[in-house]
Every structure is written in C-alpha cells, then in structure tokens.
C-alpha cells in the first residue's frame, strides 16, 4: 500500500447543503446538550411512566450529607449508589462545594438558571428541527439519502469484514464513498436518534400531549419520554465522540477540508464519483 501522489485525485465529496447542515447541527448540539443539562439539573432524577414517584427513581444525581457533615455527590442508578463528588451531585463552584446535578462547566448558563436554560434550549431546538427538515428534504430529493447513505446489498455483504477491520483499527482512509459502517452510523442518526430526540422532547410538552396523546403512549408516559430524551442525548454525544475520533484517525486535515470546502483527496483506484 504505497500509494504515490499520482494515485490520488480530488473529489467534491460534500455538497454545500450537506456542509452547511453539518455545521448548523454542530452549533445546535453545542447549545442543546449543555442547556439540556441545565434543565435536567432543576430536577436531576429520572423515572419511568407518567408520574415522578420519588420512591421509584431510575436514576438520580443527589447531594447527601455524611455523618461528619461533609457533602458528597452520589449518582444513583437503579438503587445502586456511586460516589461522584466533584462531578455529579456535588461539584465545586468558585471554590465552594455546591449541590447540583451536572457541574457548572457542563451547563448553559453555568449558574443554576432554569429560565435561561429553557430559552437557549427551545430556540436552538427550533433551529435543529428546521435544519433537520431542510436537510432531510434535500437528501431525499437529491437522492443523497438513497445513493450515498442507504447501504446496498454489496455493502451489507461486506459488513462483517468492515467490522473486523475497524476493530483491528485498520481504517479505510481516502475512500471516495462511505463504507458500510459509516452509512449505518449516519443513517441511524438521521432517521433514528435525531427524530426520536425531537419526539421525546415534544412529549414533555403538556400542550402537545393533549393534541397527540399517541406521543406519551408511544414512550410510556411523560416521565419515560424525559428519561429516553436524556438517554438519547448521551447516544448522540457518544456518536459525536466516535465521529470525531474517526475523523482524527482517518486523515484529519483531509476530512476537515472536505466538510469545510467540499473538496477532499481520495484514492484514484476505487471507483471515484461513479454514483
């Protein structure tokens, strides 16, 4: 595998619509995640069902006082307790220990300020939704979705091999087309995580629930929807972490150039833009 410079060619990899929508999504997530944690902090406990019965919490970030009057942060998952002082439940703010779910550096605004957290969250939720709808429509009409993102039979046949390669940290770099794992990852965000995170968010709206009782029924209740919304957030964060990692290890400059200018260098021999 000693490809000389002559075996590379320039490919217009990402259209302007894809690039713009990508960076709007980045901006939205940078606001939605920390403002969501701010909102979560107003009641840092999760439940299943319609009600929030304190005795049946699934997950909670608590501040407990020990016998020697020390405040400890405790993360409670299904009744199991974990000391997370400094990060979850209790953290340090301006040199002082304070009781709060997520620490100040992870929330927007940093201080406990639910009203402003909601304003940031709902404003950028609208941008997120409008951007997603626009991109979805574009991807359908331009056939970006069916041509580049939906895996074909040949893709799926190579799934095992691709998985093995990735697990051995042998990543394809400079390919002109998405590999099957990329296709599945992007597709699951576009048609799975993205829509679900919006729907679970809407289910928390009592006004929406009155018109669309199907929504709370679908997620098992408003408190379940809140729990799923929280879990999906971390799934999206997890996706983003993996995505950034893959970008970094498969030629960070070339990848960034691609998503900023549209142009990327690809290997000549693998088919190019035959679409």
């Amino acid at each position, binding site marked *: 595998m000693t490809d000389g410079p002559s075996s590379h060619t320039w490919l217009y990899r990402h259209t302007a619509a894809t690039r713009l929508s990508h960076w709007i999504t980045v901006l939205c997530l940078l606001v939605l995640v920390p403002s969501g944690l701010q909102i979560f902090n107003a009641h840092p406990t999760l439940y299943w069902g319609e009600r929030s019965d304190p005795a049946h919490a699934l997950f909670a970030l608590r501040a407990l006082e020990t016998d020697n009057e020390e405040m400890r942060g405790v993360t409670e998952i299904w009744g199991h307790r974990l000391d997370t002082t400094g990060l979850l439940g209790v953290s340090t703010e301006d040199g002082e220990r304070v009781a709060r779910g997520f620490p100040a550096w992870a929330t*927007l605004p940093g201080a406990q300020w639910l009203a402003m957290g909601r304003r940031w969250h709902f404003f950028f939720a609208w941008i997120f939704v409008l951007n997603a709808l626009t991109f979805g429509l574009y991807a359908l009409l331009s056939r970006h979705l069916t041509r580049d993102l939906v895996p074909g039979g040949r893709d799926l046949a190579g799934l095992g091999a691709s998985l093995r390669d990735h697990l051995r940290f042998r990543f394809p770099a400079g390919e002109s087309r998405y590999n099957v794992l990329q296709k599945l990852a992007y597709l699951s965000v576009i048609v799975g995580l993205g829509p679900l995170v919006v729907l679970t968010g809407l289910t928390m709206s009592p006004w929406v629930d009155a018109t669309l009782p199907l929504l709370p029924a679908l997620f098992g209740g408003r408190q379940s929807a809140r729990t799923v919304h929280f879990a999906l957030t971390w799934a999206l964060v997890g996706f983003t972490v993996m995505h950034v990692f893959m970008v970094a290890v498969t030629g960070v400059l070339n990848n960034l150039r691609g998503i900023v200018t549209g142009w990327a260098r690809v290997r000549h021999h693998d088919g190019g833009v035959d679409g």
Partner: protein
Amino acid sequence: MADRGGLDRRRFLLRGLGLAAAPLVAGCDRLSESRWVAGILRAGEAVTHGVQRTLTWRRALAREFPESARSAVFPGNGTTDPGTADYQALAASGFAAWRLEVRGLVERPARLSLPEVRALPARTQTTRHDCVEGWSAIATWTGARMSALLDRVGVRPEARYVVIRCADLMSSGEAYYESIDLVDAYHEQTLLAYEMNGRPLPVAQGAPLRLRVERQLGYKMAKYVLAVELVERLDGIARGRGGYWEDRGYEWYAGI
C-alpha cells in the same frame, strides 16, 4: 497544586470528550446576561406558541386518568403557606370571609363567596400536573369552570386576558399573579379548583381556590386565588410579562 493539576487534567479530558465546550459555555454565559441576546432567544417562545397553537386543536383535552393513577404524594411547590396575617385569619374561619372578586373588563363585576363559587357549573378531572422543573404528579381536581364564571359576569369584547391575583407574597414582597388568554380561559378543563382528591383544597395546594390550566406547566396554575381580572393588555401589570415567574424570565406560554 498537584491536586489542582489533576483536577484540571480531568476537566480537560472530560471537555475533550465533548461533554460540553467550556470556553463556548463561558462565552454563552456572557451572552445570557446580554439583553438583546435574551430578546432574540425570546423569539423562540413566539415561534413555539404560534406553531403549537396553529398545529394543534384548541379544544383538545389533556388526558384524564383513572383515580387509581393518582400520585401517593403530590409535591407542594412554590408557596405552601402564604403565612400573612390576612390569610391566616381567612383560613382560621374556614374561608367564610373570603371573597372571589371578579373585576376588570366585565359587564357585571362580582364578589363571590366560597359557597357561591361551589354553586357554579363544576367539573371533576384526574390529570397530570407537569412542573417546569421536570417532575409530574397526578391528582383529581374539582372546581368551577372558568367559562361558567366568565359567562356569569359577561366578558366585554375588548378583554383579551384573564389575570389571576393571589394571596401569597413572594420573597420580593410582590403578590403572585398569573394570566391566561381566552382560548385557555374558555377551555373545558380550565377550572377554579376548590377540591383535590375529593377533599377541600389543602393550604399547601392553594386553599381555598387554585387555577387549573391542564395543558400548561405548573407555574401557570396560581394558588390562593383572590381575584379574577379581565384585561386588554398585560404590560401595565407588575413588570409587564403576565405573571410572577414570567417577570423573572420564564415563558408566558408554558405549553412546553
């Protein structure tokens, strides 16, 4: 110092994980303080309000549950006892001297005693109460339908909002108040509730009367109601945003 370094490293790693972009958040904190950024973000509320009102059925009912779905404990949030001398005197007499004043843009202003409120066409509903903080609790509410009260006093055509005046004074010394528009005021489930779970409303839940607006968040459902006032505009009342919490940055439209 070593400990401090360890803490910084851990923070750095967590930031790197994409948990939050701390420098950006710090910048956003400055933005949050800025009046015009708050103004732009406020536009989100107008969009939410407009879209939700347009795309949903105005008369849609909030889900009603069987009584078996009630919460064992219903949190008493906000004021749980107004504690003023006036209120204590009223409560001591079983609210015999309490009157609901109906005033403002109405044809026939009225002062109703509790038995008179109880004599109005009533409704009983077991509904989910959603707090802005994130929790939900279910209870059964019985109360006079707001629409029946409004029909009794006659709403003047220029009236656009129903303002609820309350007996509880907040830490700032201002009395709690709230407001809803006429779409919500005439909604079938909008009540002035005097019973909770089949018993007279407890003090922690707003005795003798609290508002129920089932499709909005808990802070809209003012407790310790003293007066219902019909107005054309909200900007002349208190800080002009239509409610105690609205004056402190929360949305007037609390359907989300």
